[in-house]
């Protein structure tokens, strides 16, 4: 499963999600089949079941929050059940895909599909520096907390936005350095 070509996995996942959201609910066997297929795929790819279930449970409240609104209409129970089944199956599909395929191979597939190279470069750079910036932000928060004694509500907004502003300054400076480094290595 990990070694299958990324293109095959991505198109398979997209087809499955497409089917999950279009097949009418009265074909209950289809959803059972999809469920069985996903469990088999998870087994084969040896993604830990506990991990998958935990991620699903973590994401489910967002689904339920909006889905509850559908209960307010007549016959809402069917709509509600449909939403929960469909979104859970789709979520499981995406979780399986992302846990067996690396982001850069997915980008490689997009490149072959002739998606704009500018956009792919931006995505790749974003992925590369995502965790760097998140770490940087956490460092800034820690530095601030170790220097200030109070955590007063009054200054919360000011602190939050100076952190965000400083993070933007640092990321744009980093972008300048990255561009210089890319040029130095003969990019474009």
């Amino acid at each position: 499963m990990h070694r299958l070509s990324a293109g095959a996995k991505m198109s398979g996942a997209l087809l499955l999600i497409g089917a999950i959201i279009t097949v009418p609910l009265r074909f209950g066997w289809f959803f059972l089949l999809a469920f069985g297929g996903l469990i088999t795929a998870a087994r084969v790819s040896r993604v830990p079941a506990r991990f998958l279930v935990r991620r699903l449970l973590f994401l489910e409240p967002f689904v339920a929050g909006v889905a509850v609104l559908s209960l307010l209409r007549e016959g809402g129970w069917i709509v509600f059940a449909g939403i929960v089944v469909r979104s859970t199956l789709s979520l499981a599909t995406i979780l399986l895909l992302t846990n067996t395929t690396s982001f850069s191979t997915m980008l490689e597939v997009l490149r072959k599909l002739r998606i704009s190279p500018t956009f792919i470069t931006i995505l790749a750079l974003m992925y590369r520096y995502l965790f760097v910036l998140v770490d940087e932000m956490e460092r800034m928060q820690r530095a601030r907390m170790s220097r200030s004694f109070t955590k007063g509500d009054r200054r919360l907004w000011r602190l939050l936005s100076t952190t965000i502003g400083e993070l933007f300054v640092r990321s744009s400076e980093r972008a300048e350095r990255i561009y210089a480094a890319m040029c130095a290595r003969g990019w474009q």
Partner: protein
Amino acid sequence: MHIPDGFLDTKTVIATSALSVAGVAVALRHFKAEDQPRKIPLLGLTAAFVFASQMLNFPVAGGTSGHLIGAVLTAILLGPSAAVIVITSVLVVQCFLFADGGVSALGANVFNMALVAPLVGYAIYAAMHKVYSGIRGTIVAASFASWCSAVIASVCCTGELALSGTVPWSTAFVAMTGVHALIGIGEGLITALVLAALHATRPELLRAEDESGRPGDAKTFVLYGLLVVIGLLLFVVPFASPLPDGLERVAKDLGFDYTAAKHPALPAPFGAYRFPGIAGGAASAVVSGIVGVVAVFALSVGLSFVLFPRGGKTVQQKP
């Protein structure tokens, strides 16, 4: 506001995907024509920055918390086309890497948060900034435009859900727009405070965009407007129209009136509102909407006076 999979039906998925692919294509074309390749790393880093700052939660009334969308902030700092690309990248990564927002709903999420929010927000910002310039004008325009962008994006989201027959328009509208009117206040406050902080530490970052950040290309501007208007016509106008038969009319015109037959509950709210409710219901909704907008505008003006009590001349004084 990230719509998961399973909430949208096929026609909504196709319509939103087509609109957002077109919008992102326009943005990429505009970006390539206008900007140097040196801006590519900046966009990638800004996307990572928006993602990181979306992890900082701020408190909203009632114990819940919201986070920044950052659409208007990015549009002000880098220009509207760059903002479309940046927020789209954020949504793509959130969808495929963190399963936040569905794959089939990616088009809808891109349309709401990466097209409507930055473009409408930036249009409001630019129009207001023309009238009221200086740093105080920036603060007023930015906070007001951010609030509008959050609310308009949530209205589009409601429209897409209602068009799919997932949730009834009236209840979803109250829930979604009510929540986002509150979250939008936080969004506006943070956007304004971030701009104020940048103005204090690195004013050149703001001024550089005052000169080059405008949608210079008229064709791009027209295309953006067209896409947003088509989206609003499809997702919002059928439900928000005060005409009793608005939904049926539009549905018939666009050739998907079969949904009305398939989901008989969809036009039902109008049936309920038509006779005793329409005058009172629609009028009170409009009045409360206007009161809300005026209140938020007053808050924005107040904020600018709190932040810059000595007037908006500071930008011009700096060399």
